[in-house]
């Protein structure tokens, strides 16, 4: 079995205890957000336990941000009391979506084991770490012990070759991959990406790793290269040490090559992120709402793409365009670069940095039979609102072009 770099990271973190196929490993960093953190607080209290290392935890309030009901307000209150009581060193309230905040801060990098109480924790694997999501009880175990139990997965090597054509983005790569594998096609697998020409920017890598979980993968990991090290240098300054020290070739059970030069803008049809077709095949579908945001589609490059399409244009009558920058830092940068002004001028509504419409939490929930095109990661039935609503997933370029036309359209037709 080829366990890839992910398997090697697990083995290097093993503390010698083994049960069945599982190794007990030490964990380098843990991510929690308001709802999944709230779920473990009762058990933590009952255990009369404390957090193993206050510096190795990031708690964010990003789902109920700010809360829209009394119950949610009380959940946020409980989470913030926990942070204060345990003196958790890193807490971000209403500052953005946890997966973006995790990679913005000086916490995680190549070779580390990173867990989060959210399935999209896979996002951080773009930095060359083993990052995966777990349920609240698993995360509680780690919070108390600093350890977890992991079974090294079969790894798939994914070589990304060729040059990405204009108007094709990381989101299209992610959808292409999911369309090929099908829902659950990567079940339990580690997906390890090699950007052979070192051309895929970090924001796109986050998008790709974010969505590997929609194919069932345990984690996605980009082999660290010049793009990774330059991102980390800009973030943490010179001299930061990470446990990365891999030499030679990792072993893989399977290999996939995607020649990017053949890629076209992609679209996932309701109700599965793996029902993928070319956008142009579905041209003309009427859309009521366009959402550009989330932990997979609200980064700076996504807002840049949105502004690029919207410059001098207007959102079509009858379409609501909602845009949520993935973090306050991205929001500010987008203001400085003029993207936000362009979006507003075109008739878009800018929401605060939070999960919001993606999980049907608040701000932009869909009514019966409404059709939405979203840059988020899941279009499961009822996720964004009424069970009869329909959600299509696509890149921010496709989303912005669709907002202008009022119907699904390949962005290359608008430009």
């Amino acid at each position: 079995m080829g366990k890839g770099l992910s398997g090697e990271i697990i083995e290097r973190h093993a503390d010698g205890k083994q049960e069945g196929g599982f190794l007990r490993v030490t964990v380098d960093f843990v991510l929690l957000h308001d709802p999944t953190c709230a779920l473990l607080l009762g058990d933590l209290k009952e255990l009369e336990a404390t957090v193993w290392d206050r510096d190795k935890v990031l708690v964010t309030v990003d789902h109920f941000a700010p809360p829209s009901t009394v119950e949610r307000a009380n959940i946020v209150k409980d989470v913030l009391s926990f942070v204060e009581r345990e003196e958790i060193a890193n807490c971000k309230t209403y500052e953005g979506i946890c997966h973006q905040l995790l990679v913005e801060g000086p916490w995680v990098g190549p070779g580390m084991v990173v867990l989060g109480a959210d399935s999209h924790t896979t996002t951080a694997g773009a930095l060359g770490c083993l990052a995966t999501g777990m349920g609240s009880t698993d995360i509680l175990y780690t919070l108390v012990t600093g350890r977890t139990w992991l079974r090294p997965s079969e790894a798939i090597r994914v070589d990304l070759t060729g040059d990405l054509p204009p108007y094709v983005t990381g989101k299209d790569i992610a959808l292409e991959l999911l369309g090929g594998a099908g829902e659950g096609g990567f079940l339990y697998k580690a997906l390890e990406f090699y950007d052979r020409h070192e051309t895929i920017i970090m924001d796109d890598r986050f998008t790709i790793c974010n969505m590997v979980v929609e194919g069932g993968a345990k984690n996605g990991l980009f082999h660290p290269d010049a793009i990774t090290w330059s991102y980390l240098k800009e973030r943490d300054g010179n001299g930061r040490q990470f446990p990365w020290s891999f030499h030679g070739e990792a072993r893989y059970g399977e290999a996939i090559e995607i020649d990017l030069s053949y890629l076209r803008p992609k679209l996932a049809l309701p109700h599965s992120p793996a029902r993928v077709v070319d956008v142009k095949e579905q041209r003309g579908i009427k859309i009521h709402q366009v959402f550009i945001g989330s932990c997979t589609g609200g980064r700076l490059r996504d807002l840049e793409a949105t502004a690029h399409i919207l410059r001098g244009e207007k959102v079509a009558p009858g379409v609501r365009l909602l845009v949520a920058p993935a973090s306050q830092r991205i929001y500010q940068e987008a203001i400085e670069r003029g993207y936000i002004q362009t979006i507003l001028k075109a008739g878009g509504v800018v929401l605060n940095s939070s999960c919001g419409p993606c999980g049907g939490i608040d701000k932009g929930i869909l009514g019966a039979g409404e059709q939405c095109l979203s840059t988020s990661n899941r279009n499961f039935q009822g996720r964004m609102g009424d069970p009869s609503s329909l959600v299509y997933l696509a890149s921010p370029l496709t989303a912005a072009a669709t907002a202008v036309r009022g119907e699904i359209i390949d962005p290359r037709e608008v430009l």
Partner: protein
Amino acid sequence: MTLLPATIAGTAWKLGDHVNTDILHPSSYFSLDEGRVKEGLREGMQRLGKNLSNNLSGNGLVIVAGENFGCGSSRETSVRSLRLCGVRAIVAQSFARIFYRSLANLGIPPLECTGIQDWVKNGDPVLISLADGFIELGDKRRCAFSPLDPHIERILECGGLIPYLRREQDGV
């Protein structure tokens, strides 16, 4: 001492392939209130075309599903709702990773059994022998399920990950 029973008897509750947690337990039912969490499963079942609200009051339910059961969000409320509604075990062709772990962590055995959804009808009585590794259907046919990994079995024997942690801390 093991909290894992030798056998589990129940009524089959059949679901399809790729049942995700957003439909099984819609996010608007995320709550710390047990009543609300239970309601979420009832709503989810309705969305899945199953009107099994009467069954929710009884004990001894066994979910039988296809591939990739429980994919999507990690919100543990979905698994909690199953426990609160008396689901004793889940037998599926395969499970999504986080959901699989969470089931074991909350003491519900996740059993992998190839082709099980072709054998079982909704409402069938089923008898699971955890000791001998098979599922017996109403007509006495038996299907073997894949053996549980010893680590997962140990968690289940403790009654979930939290009691497992207590034992680990006590050095048992």
